[in-house]
């Protein structure tokens, strides 16, 4: 309030002692988070950045090696494998997860559907189940001999694949799992859909717009900020895929599910090459950052904010 008064008068105004006390109190209230963020996030990141320059197990000798960890990464067969596995997963999982959640949300946005609240709950539930429990459940569903998927496929005369036990199908299996857990994205889409003003649709209908036209010209643009948010978060989450690979396949078969995070976990916590593991983490960070920036840059072309002026 003090700030707006100062701006209105056109000159800085001395803050009252009460306002100053309130300001200090505000900073004190947020300080636990700020300190925690600086130490445990920013501090940890800088520490790991420093580690990339060392050959260290953090227990015995530590040797400064400059950028050698990054050089070694460039011809590490397993790292390159993990890079391709992660890339493949992201390529499949991100569009499918974003689209599946959107489709489910569009379906469940229709209040005429019987028991719509129950359906929404059912679709949301998988996203709140722990990763380990989900992995155990899907190990059963994807079992080639006794699993639900192959049983259903056999009913229509199809012999199902070996899913997580097959080099070709292991990553697609993880993608299916990811699509199944689209509940949290769906919830955000639903919120976005319900915030679209009804008069827009009414006006469009009066103008003769059909359902496809209304979806394409009203729903999608108005939903684009939510779509943008979901895309960024799904992208980041996909690059960090770990639990399924750790619990269900341990990176196999034949490293077909050796994701980057699993690889850096092994390098750090199993082989104690913390400098090298940090280098993997930073490569992953740069990749995620690059893709995120790309999405942010592209958003000016396809994300519409209500009230925004465009030239």
């Amino acid at each position, binding site marked *: 309030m003090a700030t707006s008064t100062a701006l209105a008068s056109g000159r800085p105004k001395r803050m009252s002692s009460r306002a100053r006390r309130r300001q200090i109190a505000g900073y004190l209230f947020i300080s636990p988070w700020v300190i925690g963020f600086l130490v445990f996030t920013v*501090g940890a990141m800088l*520490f790991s950045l420093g*580690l990339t320059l060392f050959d260290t197990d953090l*227990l015995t000798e530590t*040797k400064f090696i400059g950028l050698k960890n990054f050089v070694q990464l460039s011809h590490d067969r397993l790292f390159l494998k993990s890079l391709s596995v992660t890339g493949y997963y992201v390529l499949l999982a991100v569009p499918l997860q974003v689209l599946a959640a959107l489709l489910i949300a569009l379906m469940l946005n229709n209040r005429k559907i019987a028991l719509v609240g129950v359906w929404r709950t059912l679709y949301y539930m998988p996203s709140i189940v722990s*990763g380990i429990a989900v992995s155990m459940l899907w190990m059963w569903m994807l079992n080639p001999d006794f699993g639900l998927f192959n049983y259903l496929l056999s009913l229509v005369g199809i012999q199902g694949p070996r899913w997580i036990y097959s080099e070709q199908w292991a990553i697609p299996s993880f993608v299916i799992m990811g699509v199944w857990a689209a509940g949290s994205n769906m919830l955000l889409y639903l919120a976005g859909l319900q915030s679209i003003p009804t008069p827009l649709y009414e006006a469009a209908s009066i103008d003769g717009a059909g359902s496809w036209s209304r979806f394409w010209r009203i729903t999608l643009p108005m939903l684009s900020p939510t779509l943008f948010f979901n895309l960024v978060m799904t992208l980041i989450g996909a690059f960090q895929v770990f*639990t399924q690979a750790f619990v269900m396949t341990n990176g196999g078969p*034949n490293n077909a599910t050796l994701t980057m995070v699993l690889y850096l976990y092994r390098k750090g*916590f199993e082989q104690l090459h913390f400098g090298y593991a940090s280098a993997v983490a930073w490569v992953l960070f740069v990749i995620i950052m690059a893709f995120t920036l790309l999405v942010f840059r592209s958003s000016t072309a396809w994300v519409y904010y209500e009230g925004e002026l465009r030239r």
Partner: protein
Amino acid sequence: MSTRFSRRHFLSAIALLAGSGAAGAALSACGATPAPAATQAPAAATQAPAAATEAPTAAQATEATAAPAAAGGGAVTIRWLDWSDQDDIINAAIAKLKEKHPNVTVNFEPIGDQWGDKQLTQMVSGNAPDLLTGNDQTSYIWAEKNQLLDLNPLVDRDLTSDQIADFFEYQWNGLLYPGNKQRMGLPYYTWIYQYYINLDAFAEAGLTPPKAGWKLDDYDLDLTKLTKKDDSGKVTRWGGMDNSYDPFRFEMWLRIFGGNMVDPNDWTKCVLNTKEAKDAFEWHRVRLFEKNTLIQQTQVGQLTNMDPIATEKVAIMGEGNGNEGLMLDNPPKFKWGCVAPPIGPTGKAQGIGTIDNWGIWKGTKAPDVVWDLLKIVAIQDDFQLAFAAKWVATPNRKSLLPKFAAAVKAKYKDATDDQIQPQLDLLTSGAVQIGTQFKKHKASLEIINPAMEQILRTGTAKPDILDSVADQVTKLNQEA
């Protein structure tokens, strides 16, 4: 450029660089940093350095609190991390220690999930427990990283030759770290691999149940005859399940065929490319994926522990003797017994056992007190028998085996000699060996595991791929 730092200087410098040293000290006084768990692993991977950031602070804190106690010669606090819960046995051991050291406080820490990661984090932060449990996965790493107190001088000082001779040789010798021959710990109990057999299934098939000294051909025949199919040709019960398809357990099978994983004379050399080693793989591959008299991993479904034999999905099952408690606690509908692994082309009995142990962290401020506690749990008969009875795992010394058998029979009235005696005979036969280690063991397993998966779990490759695997592993271990 190659500049060397001490660990303390390195951690301090990095912490300062991060600008988080002071805040870290303030916050570490307010609360503990959570240990990384399995589900948190992605976060842990990025958070790991955070724990390390605190290292100087935590290390200083340990020194600060321990120093006055040591100087005063009075109260001492030690920490004990164990895979047991804090039950009556643990409390009794602590009480026993306090008889000798009345001013000692023992803080017990149950181990929880991902305990290897937890121990590592504690060691990095200079704040590890004084007495800790270890096994084939961890002890070698801690020893290599100079985190374990060498127990050889304490053993020489306090244990008699009779006491030492009472331990099982494979385990006693296995607890010497190959690199510098330091003693990493004292045995916790004994875990060995054996075969559980459905005696009713053998009777139904007109087969004589196997006894120690049975041959590989007998095993093969039993697997074939015990595999049952319905009219459509679908298998309704497999002859057997060999739960040994990981590098540690499969070493037993390599030795049955006269092979090895690591060259016994050179821990940098992988010998999985020998004919003997490949024969062992091929024997299993054929029975898994061609004859299918051994159940495949996917055919097991979601059955865990002893369920495959308990639910009669298989008639023979290879597992650790530590799982015998599960069978005794939940008796299956059929009569069952146990038998040692079969004898293969070498004509020599083989077995595999672990080095599960208690060790002492090198950074302990009270090594003599911790050593006294270790002696109570590992050497005093009543405690050792109590631990063995609790886990239904055989005790760590030969002289205790008769008492262990009596204790099991007292606890389980229906337990038979067929179930208890074979593991005792195997332990005393001298056939049991430990798993061997490469110089760069974990990194070697990164190459070996995918190959084993392809041959024994997915059936997508033949043992020929081991030629390339052995070359890669040897090259890795011989690199500077």
